[in-house]
């Protein structure tokens, strides 16, 4: 057990990108490449063509500039790979934190397809490798704040959600985009139990989904996503609670009206649609003012929008965030 004194560096303290790249990403990615190499021949053959990263962000990709400011303010230690991949909420594989790592081996991520439908000009069914094509795969380090008041710092590999939304070309009437997890109790054994209404559903307002911070992740720590982290494709929206980050996505649908999301459906007084990280709005059963960063001893204060307020607060201008929790 690692006991460390609290990290008192405010997240607003900006570290230059160069320092960030050298200190964090290089270390993280070196480890990642080593891990990825070891696992390269393994289960996720789909990813053979995915560009493998060397140290540092890609310079030839459009959206990079948009999120570089965010990455550079993350002078926080990465949560170890072992913790990121062994402490998961993925109820399709059990409700204990260590259950998904034990049980998710039954998920088959080969020949994965993603259906795009609803209010868009270009619906279709894509193989995973075709689906991710318009996106430039990049590595991004984000804080991940779970609604249960624990948090991690995770180096994701993924691409801007906006890229696939633009390709789908939503109609003017589309205001929301909804995602669906695979429904297959044969592969996801706990879908046999009515813990939640399966399949798991999540959704974003279209302007949220187009925000450059919102990504679809295909990997973590420079390697393909392990099954328990939502392979082969999951949503990552770093300013929202972790349950918005729907895993193992098979459908993306454009809708006019706000759809229900699974946790809101399960307990609407506890979980809302927006689920923006907000230290001022407590969960009925625990405070959201503080969080335990895994690996740290003392709880640290939770930041508004998980520290991404500068980038995303404008999405919610004029909204009552207490009512729209």
């Amino acid at each position, binding site marked *: *057990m690692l006991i460390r004194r609290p990290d008192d560096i405010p997240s607003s303290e900006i570290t230059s990108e160069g320092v960030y790249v050298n200190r964090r990403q290089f270390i993280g990615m070196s480890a990642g490449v080593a891990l990825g190499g070891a696992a390269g021949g393994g289960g996720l053959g789909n990813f053979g063509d995915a560009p493998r990263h060397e140290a540092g962000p890609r310079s030839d990709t459009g959206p990079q500039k948009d999120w570089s400011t965010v990455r550079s303010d993350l002078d926080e230690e990465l*949560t170890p790979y*072992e*913790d990121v991949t*062994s*402490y998961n909420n993925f*109820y399709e594989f059990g*409700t204990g*934190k*260590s259950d998904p790592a034990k049980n998710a081996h039954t998920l088959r991520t080969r020949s994965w397809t993603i259906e795009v439908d609803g209010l868009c000009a270009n619906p279709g069914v894509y193989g995973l490798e075709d689906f991710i094509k318009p996106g430039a795969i990049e590595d991004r380090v984000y804080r991940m704040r779970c609604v*249960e008041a*624990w948090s991690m710092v995770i180096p994701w590999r993924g691409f801007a959600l906006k890229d696939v939304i633009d390709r789908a070309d939503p109609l003017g009437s589309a205001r929301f985009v909804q995602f669906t997890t695979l429904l297959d109790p044969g592969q996801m054994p706990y879908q046999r139990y009515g*813990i*939640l209404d399966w399949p798991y559903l999540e959704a974003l307002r279209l302007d949220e989904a187009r925000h450059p911070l919102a990504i679809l992740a295909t990997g973590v720590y420079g390697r393909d996503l392990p099954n328990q982290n939502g392979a082969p494709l999951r949503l990552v929206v770093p300013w929202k609670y972790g349950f918005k980050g729907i895993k193992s996505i098979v459908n993306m649908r454009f809708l006019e009206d706000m759809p229900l999301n699974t946790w809101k459906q*399960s*307990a609407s007084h506890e979980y809302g649609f927006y689920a923006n990280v907000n230290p001022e709005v*407590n969960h*009925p*059963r*625990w*405070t959201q*003012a*503080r969080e*335990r960063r*895994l*690996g740290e*001893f*003392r*709880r640290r204060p939770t930041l508004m929008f998980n520290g991404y307020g500068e980038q995303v607060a404008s999405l919610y201008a004029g909204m009552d965030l207490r009512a729209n929790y």
Partner: protein
Amino acid sequence: MLGLTPAALLVWRGLTDRLGANPIEEVLHHLGRSALIFLIITLSVTPIRRVTGWNPIIQARRPLGLFAFFYLTLHLLWYAVVDQTYDFEFILEDVLERRYIMVGFTAWLLLVPLAVTSTKGWIRRLGKRWRKLHRLAYVATSLGVLHFYWQVKADTYWPIVAASVLALLMLLRVRIGDGGGPLRSRKPARGRRPVEVADPTSSKGL
């Protein structure tokens, strides 16, 4: 010693790095589960004795109950000292505003007088009132199960198992009475148990 098994298990898990990525939470849950299990085992002693007529088992009741209190106290201390780092502002907010914590804390408070009056001297001094007082164990255990139930997010399987076992025990208690003696007659043990006839109030249940 049965009572130390959870503690030994916890130490073993700690030493062999089996507490996962969030050991503080895991220890908290381990202690809470241990307390609830011991409370339920403690409450099952009398029904087992009265159904089986196996009297020596009654001697296990006090140590079992005290171990339950021991784990519950550790659970509370771990929460306050380690989990919340004795940040009383947040602890107070939790206890006052979060019903599952309020209920859990109440359960502990109810068990304090039971632990204090578990000695032979207190049993003698309180006489008839001792058994009435110690029926609070049922209230405290019920609150413990409620605390467990309200604490989980969606998977209520184990809280419901705990509630079912507790309901069964309470039902047995109502059916067979909570009189101190076994169903078969037994010579009165002076001092230890104040009354040997079935308690007339017991048929009302709790």
